[in-house]
């Protein structure tokens, strides 16, 4: 087998194992913590008999391993169980909301990625001079803000100071694409801000790293113009780290989206998760948690794979 293919397969298998391990932790680790689901549902005043009945009904009297494998087997078939609080099908509820979350995240990514790369290039090109200092300063301030703080600054600015948007984002089934787009504009701007700062700083670092290589000096001494140096020599080497940076930050979007959805009361997966944490509805929390974890792990592995494929040493072994 080509060594490259071997590495890729290894990495994929590793990712699957990691996801499995995470599901074990999320399921069994949580089981080990003090706290009782049956008690949580019935409250402190529940009688022991009622508790025992509920436990038997939910299968809580079985050993954790048995419950884990039962749960895993069902989950693999798309059955995530029923919510404790309203007895509705979790998979169905997630299906309704996943689209909204993806719509928001993809919109944010579509704007943030080119913007981050562009600004990163500008900062790296003018390294140490005022455009770099300005961009770096502003982004340093931005990464110091939690998502919800950034969100409220944006809301106040765009709904109160300048009356451009509605402060609440309602999306509902059957809404037109552009109406939906307008509705998510505000949360999208916030997400872009948050992701942009990290992505841009890492892009800048990746480009600077390449620009300091000896082969860039060689190219300059060959009489290439700055643009030729960048296109012919810097970019082929910088593209892999940049793509890695972008993908890693898309994974970071996963966290940002949770908070931003709550801020804007945007009916999607993050909001669903936070609601059910407050209600202590463990099956929902576990299911949504694993979905977020899977997306995060998947994107990180994608970043690794791009790094492996882009490495000429691995593509053209001795």
């Amino acid at each position, binding site marked *: 087998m080509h060594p490259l293919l071997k590495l890729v397969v290894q990495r994929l298998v590793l990712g699957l194992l990691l996801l499995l391990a995470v599901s074990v932790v999320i399921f069994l680790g949580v089981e080990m913590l003090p706290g009782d689901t049956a008690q949580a549902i019935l409250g402190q005043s529940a009688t022991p008999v009622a508790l025992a009945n509920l436990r038997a009904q939910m299968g809580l009297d079985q050993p954790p391993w048995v419950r884990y494998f039962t749960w895993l087997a069902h989950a693999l078939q798309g059955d995530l169980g029923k919510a404790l609080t309203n007895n509705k099908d979790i998979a169905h509820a997630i299906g309704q909301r996943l689209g909204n979350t993806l719509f928001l995240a993809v919109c944010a990514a579509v704007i943030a990625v080119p913007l981050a790369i562009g600004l990163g290039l500008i900062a790296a090109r003018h390294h140490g001079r005022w455009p770099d200092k300005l961009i770096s300063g502003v982004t340093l301030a931005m990464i110091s803000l939690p998502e919800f703080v950034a969100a409220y600054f944006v809301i106040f600015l765009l709904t109160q100071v300048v009356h451009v948007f509605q402060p609440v984002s309602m999306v509902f089934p059957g809404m037109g694409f552009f109406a939906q787009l307008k509705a998510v504009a505000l949360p999208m701007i916030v997400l872009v801000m948050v992701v942009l700062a990290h992505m841009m700083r890492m892009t800048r670092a990746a480009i600077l790293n390449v620009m300091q*290589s*000896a*082969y860039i000096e060689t190219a300059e*001494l*060959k*009489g*290439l113009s700055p643009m030729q140096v960048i296109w012919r020599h810097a970019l082929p*080497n910088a593209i892999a780290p940049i793509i890695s940076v972008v993908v890693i930050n898309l994974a970071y979007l996963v966290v940002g989206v949770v908070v931003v959805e709550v801020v804007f009361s945007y009916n999607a997966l993050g909001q669903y998760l936070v609601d059910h944490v407050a209600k202590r509805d463990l099956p929902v929390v576990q299911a949504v948690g694993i979905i977020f974890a899977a997306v995060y792990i998947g994107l990180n592995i994608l970043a690794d794979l791009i790094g492996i494929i882009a490495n*000429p040493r691995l593509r*053209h072994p001795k």
Partner: protein
Amino acid sequence: MPKIGTGDLLEIRNLRIEATAYPPGEKPRHLMLVDDVSVTLAKGRVLGLIGESGAGKSTIGLAAMAYGRGGVRLTGGQVLLNGRDIRTAGTKGLQALRGREVTYVAQSAAAAFNPAKRLMEQVIETTLLHKVLSRFEAEARAVDLFRKLGLPNPESFGRRYPHQVSGGQLQRAMTAMALCPMPDLVIFDEPTTALDVTTQIDVLAAIKEAIHDTGVAAIYITHDLAVVAQVADDIMVLRHGKTVEYGSADQIINTPAEAYTQALVSVRSIDHTEKSSAAPVLRAEGITARYRGTDFDVLKNVTVDVAAGQTLAIVGESGSGKSTLARVITGLLPAGAGTITFAGRVLSPDLASRTKDDLREVQMVYQMADTAMNPRQTVGTIIGRPLEFYFGLKGEAKRARVQALLDEIEMGAGFENRYPAELSGGQKQRVCIARALAAKPKLIICDEVTSALDPLVADGILKLLLDLQAKEGVAYLFITHDLATVKAIADKIAVMYRGEVVRYGQKSDVLAPPFDDYTDLLLSSVPEMKLGWLEGVLKSRKMASAGN
């Protein structure tokens, strides 16, 4: 002095180069890198620039392309190339001239090639960019150059990526890249410094022949006067950015006028007569060793001994296993087989089970003094710790002993409270030697202790080591790749090649014919400080191979 005439290819007049350093957390510092330097270079001639680190030789070389590295500025004088001042050429003018009229060969070709592109693309890039030749012609010329420079499979060589060929081959490929656009001038910036001696001689010969065949002019920058003597017509000696001496190669090598040049020419000529054989203090017998997780032996059945109060030099190129031998003797890498006998007792192969006296009596001095000293400890602490640790010295007694040791390494008072970062390269290495001496060892292992130093500083260290040996009677196991150093310090020599000792004995025996093939190759590859040495070696090698 060569005439400052007009019509020469390159004329540098009263060049001044400055820079500003910005150490973090400190005030910016102004530096004068090159001060009032003038050179001329006619078509087809080779000028050697020589000096120790910080002499400004690379800076001058790059100035011939009007290029300054990171914040370096050309602030005075003129650089005339083909009769016009390139300092005023402007961005477009410089782009037209770089890679066309002047090209550059860097010290580390491995870093200077773009890892993501095939060699051929990079070699012919400027030739196409400046429209010197068509792609077809350029590739043909590149293949021709590959052949001339002795690269394997010249037709297909260009299809490889940089990481797929060796360091010596990359250095030749970089030379081909510089010669491909048919420039008037090539700057060679320490092109052979990073190579092993036996590789260096081949690359040096290839470069010299290529310069000769193409009739190109060249500036050859190096810290090694013996190397530059082989290729240069004229030589300029630089120190601290100023010209020390400038003349023909013949004059500089054979009748140097300035004291500094004389010192450079006579460097490595320390006179050391070997001591007669004596009882060994250390005997390593049948040592075989491999690193964990590998499946080949780095050392194969190595047997050597070090006589008390004498020096055994271990000579070899990279990969010969000479540093591994030091790790085995110190116990850092337990041997797979063999025994180490030290001062009449058998040492445990493994560091952890050696006694405190075992540890004290074998000390080590490293190649990079920078990383061998904790940057957060003062010189006093560094030298004082072994005194405290082995002999329980404290307070005034310790302080007095530290001072005595500082005197022994010729550094005197006032260094006790300094940090390593405040010392020069030579001083750092002296402190490391003092730390080793503090333990009152019977044996000091010196691992390439002079390789990172400028030649004159290295000479000082060697003299110090010889003096200390005479005074203290300590034995040295001296590991080096440099035969001149060996001649200066050894009583006994072991030549190592691929994990085996290929030649071993008293210095006078090892360095006298008849030689085995490898020792012969190694000895004959070390550049000598005389003109025409390279031709002589190549000729005798050719005759030898014709005779076989």
